């Protein structure tokens, strides 16, 4: 099994593509609202850089003062000499007074720098978080518009990863990426300018390691990133091994294969550790190597600089200032390599975000929606409808509709369906699993697109209806009772703008769930799901029924809505619903005869075709699938009484 485990990670990962800088261009519109603060932030960076260049000069002046130089830092000329002139007013060699003033000046300058450093971080990193906020909202706003087919093509995990990992990579570009780029440029420029004043030759020599450091950071950054990806893959393999063993625990025990399972886990464990060790090798080399390379700059300062002082080319104060500037260069040198990696990865991630942001909803309003009346009457007509799901679905995709089960792509799921459902009538659809019942219901709610001119609502092609108006007229109870982890009240009132007081309770009562809810300690304010009370399958189904009923829909669709409810309870619910059914078009999908008995029309679907249609009495008389289903129902009831 180990060979298999290893090869899981072997399919060639796409190598880093040349950075798609164009992708990052998509960020410009997001930056636009923050143009002013961005400029302000960059300006504070500039001031911060200027202030940051001062302390080494002050230290240099202090040293020269202590050594009794008549003029501090004699190498500085022109502009820089001018900048130093305020200090020269009170400068006098070996003066304790002047020394005190300089010490205070040093603290004052750093305090000023601190204010701007605070402002730049607060503004620039803050903007990156704000844009992250905007981007995240836009991602969801796009996702809610996309049709089920999109979610079939793109597994949930994949979309989640884009909305989390990729978003945070892009945020890195906007925050640290921009801030450290600005910082690096300003600091390097200032430090180099001043160093050049002190000694151009020494400056050039000291800067030799800069490109080496930047390249080293980039090199190790990429290697470590690659190795990290590999480590993650190995971890995934290891997790999969454990997962598989634990899921198949009964087989393992039954065949007494614990020992060989441990061995197989051991191999994955060993591989994972091995890959980690590879990464460690790179990682433990990284920082010492940086220190080593950067250390050479300091050696040069010591060697060359000391000689220059001795020869009288520069003052000792200048050497100390120079040394301090080299110290200031260390971080920018590292940042240079790091920032380019941020931009590179950010571009790749932005491309993956653009995939979502640029997705075009395939189901929406027609160019020229039909002029339809204010109200949907509720007449539904299928005309020779044949429907196949568009593309083969991915193995891990979510169901296009909760509970729709596996849908083979390509082959028609519904064939040649012709069915007219008059407004206000109740139609039941029965048939074995996979016969197309759920698909039929999903088409009415336009979750999937029926072929042109095969499905009509009130005589108007479904594609010509404004989507929102159509869906507002529908109350849908899906097969899988999907509730959100909010309160029961919020879940029931999910599809209405405002629930008048009592409406939630009314809906719950009709759906026969109100007495269950009142038994929860928090009643309607009980939170559904993990952090709250776990509802039973039947309670969930009845809650989703209440959620549909509160909308007072013209068309009510119940997709196997009572499967988790026992027959007696179902009977009671149905009695309560009689009045509800009478006032609207109702589509009832079920496996049970007891559910559908009283429908105006019962349709039997098999293999995507309508095989039988008629009333309960007619179908029983005909002795087909429905009649057999009815027989079984009676037997079930007998057995339950045993």
């Amino acid at each position, binding site marked *: 099994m180990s060979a298999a485990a290893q090869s899981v990670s072997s399919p060639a990962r796409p190598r880093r593509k040349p950075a798609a800088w164009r992708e990052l261009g998509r960020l410009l519109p997001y930056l636009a609202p923050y143009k002013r603060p961005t400029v302000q932030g960059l300006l504070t960076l500039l001031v911060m850089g200027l202030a940051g260049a001062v302390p080494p000069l002050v230290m240099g002046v202090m040293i020269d003062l*202590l050594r009794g130089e008549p003029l501090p830092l004699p190498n500085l000329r022109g502009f820089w000499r001018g900048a130093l002139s305020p200090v020269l007013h009170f400068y006098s060699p*070996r003066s*304790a007074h002047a*020394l005190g003033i300089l*010490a205070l000046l040093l*603290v004052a300058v*750093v305090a000023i*720098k*601190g204010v701007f*450093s*605070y402002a730049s971080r*607060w503004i620039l990193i803050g903007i990156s*978080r704000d844009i992250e*906020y905007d981007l995240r*909202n836009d991602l969801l706003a796009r996702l*809610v518009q996309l049709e*089920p087919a999109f979610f079939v093509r793109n597994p949930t995990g994949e*979309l*989640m990863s884009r*909305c989390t990992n990729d978003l945070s990579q892009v945020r890195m570009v906007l925050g640290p990426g921009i801030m450290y780029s600005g910082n690096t440029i300003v600091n390097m420029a200032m430090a180099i300018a001043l160093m050049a004043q002190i000694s151009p030759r020494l400056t050039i020599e000291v800067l030799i390691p800069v490109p080496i450091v930047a390249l080293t950071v980039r090199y190790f950054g990429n290697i470590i990133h690659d190795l990290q990806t590999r480590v993650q893959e190995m971890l995934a393999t290891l*997790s999969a091994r454990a*997962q598989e*063993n634990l*899921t198949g*625990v*009964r*087989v393992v*025990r*039954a065949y*007494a*294969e614990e020992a*060989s399972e*441990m061995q*197989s886990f051991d191999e994955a*464990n*060993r591989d994972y*550790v091995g890959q*980690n060790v590879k990464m*460690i090798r790179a990682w*433990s080399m990284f920082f*010492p190597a940086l220190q*080593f390379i950067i250390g050479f700059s300091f*050696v040069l300062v*010591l*060697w060359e600089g*000391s*000689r220059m*002082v*001795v020869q009288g080319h520069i003052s*000792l104060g200048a050497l*100390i200032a120079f040394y301090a500037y080299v110290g200031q260069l260390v971080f920018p040198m590292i940042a240079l390599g790091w920032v380019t990696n941020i931009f590179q990865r950010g571009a790749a991630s932005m491309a993956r975000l653009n995939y979502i942001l640029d997705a075009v909803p395939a189901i929406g309003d027609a160019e020229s929606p039909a002029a339809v009346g204010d109200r949907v009457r509720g007449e539904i007509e299928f005309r020779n409808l044949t429907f196949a799901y568009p593309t083969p679905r991915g193995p891990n995709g*979510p169901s296009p509709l*909760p509970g729709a089960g596996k849908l083979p792509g390509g082959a028609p799921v519904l064939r040649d369906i012709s069915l007219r459902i008059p407004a206000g009538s109740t139609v039941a659809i029965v048939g074995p699993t996979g016969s197309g019942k759920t698909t039929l219901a999903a088409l009415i709610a336009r979750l999937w697109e029926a072929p042109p001119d095969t499905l009509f609502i009130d005589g108007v092609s479904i594609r010509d209806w404004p989507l929102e108006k159509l869906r507002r007229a529908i109350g*849908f109870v899906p097969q899988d009772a999907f509730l959100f982890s909010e309160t029961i009240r919020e879940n029931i009132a*999910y599809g209405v703008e405002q629930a008048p007081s009592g409406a939630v309770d009314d809906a719950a009562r009709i759906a026969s769930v109100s007495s269950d809810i009142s038994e929860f300690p928090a009643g309607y304010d009980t939170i559904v799901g993990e952090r709250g009370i776990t509802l039973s399958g039947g309670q969930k189904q009845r809650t989703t029924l209440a959620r549909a009923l509160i909308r007072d829909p013209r068309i009510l669709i119940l997709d196997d809505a009572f499967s988790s409810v026992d027959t007696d309870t179902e009977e009671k619910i149905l009695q309560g619903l009689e009045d509800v059914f009478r006032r609207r078009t109702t589509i009832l999908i079920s496996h049970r005869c007891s559910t559908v008995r009283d429908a105006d029309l019962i349709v039997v679907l098999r293999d995507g075709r309508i095989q039988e249609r008629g009333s309960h009495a007619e179908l029983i008389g005909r002795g087909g699938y429905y009649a057999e289903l009815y*027989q*079984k129902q009676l037997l*079930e009831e007998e*057995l339950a009484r*045993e």
Partner: protein
Amino acid sequence: MSAHHEEEALGRIYDSRLTGRLLGYLRPYRWRVYFALALTLLVTPLQAVAPYLFHVAIDSYIDPAFRHKIALAAAYRGIAWLSVVFIASLVLGFTLQYLQVWIMQTVGQAAMYDLRKQIFAHLQRLPMAFYDRTPVGRLVTRATTDVDALNDLFAAGVVAMINDFFLLIFFVAVMLKLDWRLALAALAVLPLMSAVTWVFRNSVREANRRIRTTIARINAFLQEHITGMAVVQLFNRERKTSDQFAGLNRGYNVAFKQAIFAFAVFYPTIELLSSAAYALVFWYGGLQVLLRGVELGLVVAFFQYAQRFFTPIQDLSDKFNILQAAMAASERIFKLLDEPAPVLAPAAPRRLQRVRGHIEFRNVWFAYRNAANPSEEDWVLRDVSFQIEPGRMVAVVGHTGAGKTTVIQLLLRFYEIQRGRILLDGGDVREMDPVELRRHFGVVLQDPFLFTGTIESNVRLGSETIGPAQVESALREVGVGPWIETLPQGIETRVTERGATFSVGQRQLISFARALAHRPEILILDEATSSVDTNTELLIREALERMFSGRTSIVIAHRLSTIQRADRILVMHKSRLREQGTHQELLAQGGIYSRLYQLQYRDQETPLVAPSPDLSAPLAASD
């Protein structure tokens, strides 16, 4: 009291009981750990070399040479030597640091490897009841993510902390020794700096906690709404969902602003305090130079010492986080390791020489829930008694939840019964070693579970005694020989996770071959309910026929052909064994079986002539 809570809980920073237990994992590698710690003693002083060299350069060479107290050549020579020492210290520093990080990281990996192995081995011993109440995902997390959190502690946290600690002590000592007054000047800001760091740590921790909870909420919301997107759209909730999301998103944004604020204040404050320390060193040191003739190089050196001194203090809060995460993870891991794994094998197990295959249930009562003291409604089996003669085939039928699967789980001794006895060849199964016992069973579960690997490895399942020839003959025996031959890689064909690339029928047949290859005396089979195509159905029937012949077989039956062939049928209904007999006898009896038959099996009477989708599927029992 949810799982959520357990995962979120943050431990203390330090817990001596947990720490002691964790250190136990370093024990096998203690010499390497000692060596790495010894390296600390060498690495730290190297950090102090550069400032000292400047001190010497200025005071012994530059200044004297400048004042013409020593010859230029001598000064150059001295500086050259200092540069050489500097380079040597760089090379040494590089080597030692690399070595130290390498050793500790590999030790950490080795310890984690051991820990993971121990967790996995422990999982193999935990009783089945444990798996019934624990989600698999959580167990996987223990063996992977949680262990990695510990790795951070071993690999990075501990060494860095010891290094930092040693560095602080060393620098204080060096500074005090060089000039205690200057040392006090440089360290004057230290209390203030510690206080600032402490305040910062607390406010950032609060912000981090809010960031973690808000991002968890955002991700849960996203996950939930992507999964339930159809419901969102059906109920016209697109806009409201976006608004709701924006609210959560805002909470995250605000929490982060809080953290950004803390950092934006912290960094400049620390820098300001450091610069105050430098100013103090220069001012006070300068006065000493002017008044007492202290050497200038010493002041410069002190400035550089102070620079290096403050960095580890600022890093302390990161280290705290690592510690905290590691403690929380180790607490969860140890809780799992402390989960009792009862030894099922008796001290002197009854040896099974030649198993004939006589099975007896004698007044067996069993409950999954409240196993220690079951209440009336907890019983899943009530007073079940039956015998199976060697070589006979018995079918168990009944409705969902009637207790059929429980019967075979008990026979395999996945659970302990509360009352009664289960006997194999007249001996109580509790007197046998369960691993030994299970070797005599060939088991096919309802969901034919395939492992990642190859067809061969799935049939063999790690058993050393089964060679490729036996695997092939087992596969031939169940009738998939011709199919295997069409596969380019034959029995070496890859099986992906859970056998996703094979059809249900193929998976069933492979698991049949698995059972056969192990040459069991007793066959235990939970027939799958899923329908397969006619061809496969025929193959399965023939395979079953061959598997049943000559060995005791107990089958949870879903096929008419199986129950018709059974020597005896056991009818389970509502936790009791209600009827038993042959197919004809039971039908004639007109009891529960006759109705079950009409419900579940009758439709299969002619299916091979006119194949049609399984009519009974919606009603069929599926345990």
